């Protein structure tokens, strides 16, 4: 998305913060915060898919949920399709719900087992639109066609479906109100390998047909490489790197992105024999007590003195690429794209 400045983003997130308070002791006093999301900013263009990757606990799901105001955010602003979301009151938020929807990770847990497919898909219609029962049924059938569910199954219950089909029900429900923006929170993580491809292809088809904009949250880097136009990498509540798909996978700049990509095994024994992955030592620190300076400094193979003292600023490399790392702070101008030689140093 080279012309990112010329078009207007559909989703604009600025300095988003989501802290969960920690209460302890007899009187449940507030003793600290889990900084699940700690000041992140990004844009998503209309029709674009932004992949959000990171390991468990890095805050990627919290970002998805905060953007849709499933949580009351601690700070920052979120603008979707020109309307402010993060700080509006409940009534005006409710009127904006139709344009922003979510597809959840676990289709088993996110579908009510006592409701039929028709009533699950029809519920948002009942809540937000005034339809006659014929119009309502016609819309339900249309949605079922879109996601490849047989109309004859409309009266069945979720447990009668396989995991992949259940995810299709969840997708149909998300599409019911003609949303512009959908947060896909690990939509394929619970599915089998051969079913994942079916669901990903469906999401891509629907995006083309309905001009949808996705935030695709996943820990599966190879799937993100397939579906996303741009990718944001999160570590411990912060975005460490954002870049176009091509740039990020061809030449990751942040040491964490480099380690993350190199940790993905190659489905090819020949290449795998000679591959030397960057194995990070230790675990992700607790978000209740993040390290001083750069969040990644405790595990970074290229750590310098400054990293343990000062938090790196996000630097723009042009072409929509941003990196937050001290390796690139000095001796480099903001406009110049770094060359391979610079990165090695």
């Amino acid at each position, binding site marked *: 998305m080279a012309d990112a400045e010329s078009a207007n983003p559909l989703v604009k997130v600025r300095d988003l913060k989501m802290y969960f308070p920690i209460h302890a002791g007899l009187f449940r006093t507030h003793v600290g915060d889990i900084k699940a999301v700690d000041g992140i900013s990004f844009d998503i263009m209309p029709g674009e898919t932004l992949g959000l990757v990171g390991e468990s606990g890095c805050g990627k799901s919290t970002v998805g949920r905060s953007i849709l105001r499933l949580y009351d955010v601690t700070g920052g602003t979120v603008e979707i399709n020109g309307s402010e979301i993060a700080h509006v009151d409940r009534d005006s938020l409710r009127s904006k719900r139709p344009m922003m929807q979510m597809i959840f990770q676990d289709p088993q847990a996110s579908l009510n087992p006592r409701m039929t497919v028709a009533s699950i898909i029809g519920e948002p219609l009942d809540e937000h639109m005034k339809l006659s029962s014929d119009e309502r049924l016609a819309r339900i059938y249309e949605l079922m066609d879109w996601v490849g569910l047989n109309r004859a199954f409309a009266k069945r219950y979720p447990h009668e479906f396989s995991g992949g089909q259940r995810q299709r029900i969840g997708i149909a429900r998300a599409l019911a109100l003609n949303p512009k923006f959908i947060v896909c929170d690990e939509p394929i993580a619970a599915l089998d390998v051969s079913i994942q491809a079916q669901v990903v292809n469906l999401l891509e088809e629907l995006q083309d047909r309905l001009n949808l904009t996705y935030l695709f949250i996943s820990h599966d880097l190879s799937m993100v490489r397939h579906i996303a136009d741009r990718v944001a990498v999160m570590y411990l509540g912060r975005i460490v790197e954002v870049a176009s798909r091509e740039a990020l996978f061809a030449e990751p700049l942040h040491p964490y992105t480099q*380690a993350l990509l190199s940790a993905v095994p190659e489905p090819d024994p020949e290449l795998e024999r000679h591959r030397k992955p960057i194995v990070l030592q230790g675990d992700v620190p607790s978000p209740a007590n993040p390290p001083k300076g750069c969040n990644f400094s405790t595990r970074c193979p290229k750590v310098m003195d400054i990293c343990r003292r000062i938090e790196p600023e996000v630097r723009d490399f042009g072409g929509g690429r941003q990196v937050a790392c001290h390796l690139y702070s000095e001796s480099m101008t903001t406009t110049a794209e770094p060359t391979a030689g610079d990165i090695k140093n």
Partner: protein
Amino acid sequence: MPDTAMPILDVKGLKTVFRTRGGEVHAVNSVDFDLRPGELLGVVGESGSGKSVTMMSLLRLLPSPPAEMRDGAVMFDGQDLLKISPEELRKVRGSKIGFIFQDPMTSLNPVYTIGFQLAEPLRAHLGLSKAQARTRSIELLQLVGIPDAERRLKDYPHQFSGGMRQRVMIAIALACDPQVLIADEPTTALDVTIQAQIIELVKELRQKLGMAIIWITHDLGVIAGIADRVMVMYAGQVVEEGPVGEIFRDPQHPYTQALLKTVPAVRGPRAERLQVIEGQPPIMYEAPAACSFRNRCQFAFDRCSQENPTLTGISAPGHRAACFLLDKASTPEPEAVDG
């Protein structure tokens, strides 16, 4: 690879059935395989393909009812594990054959310390004293790369991170120096950077200790990096097996071929559209009388719905697949199918 060595584990005609209210489910259907000393056998398949049930059947770990081992023999150390008494079996489990489960949180007991759980097999199987068991436990934790091992013996499972818990599981499985280690999706619940740590650890331990490993996974990338031999399972049967290089370079079964294509790559060229295997795996309410993959197979023909193919050898040594296309290829027909 010691190709000619006697197999350390030899499984023949294993059949496991679950009796459920909806009828019998045939989870494992005549599975044959062997494992040679020091080898790493990768077992690939989707959920429900019977890979875990096969391995749990070997050690009779499945509750009966509903599970029932219908048939087969599991030869290990000169005895048939399906026939020996429970007392004898107990001497094998957790001592000569170690087991690592997928989810380290649910397979460690939350109310006992790590030290207690590590010492348990050492005292039960090797008859070590408390002090000896403690020394050995510390050694084991150091072996799997847990820092500050002595102090951590007093910790409970919840005080460890996911990757560290899996290291503890590995330490417990290795406690009695097993000849065979069965790892059931040991890295599936972990993040990629932690998965990379565990894979490096297993590679290192293999070199140091030399046990044979069965590694169950659905991730072909993991298999490519560590396995010597691969076994692909579908609907409770082995559909293809062979040396890892052969399986990836020249897969013979249409299921293996499709499975390799559905997974997008992180490196190299990027496909515009993902290949899809239509439909979903069957639930086996009857023992298979025909090829279980035929309804999802793009090459299926008449014979596939009439008989069940058995594993047939292919030119490369040790590479076998259960598919009638292989017969077809060997007996040329006028209207030969390309594929």
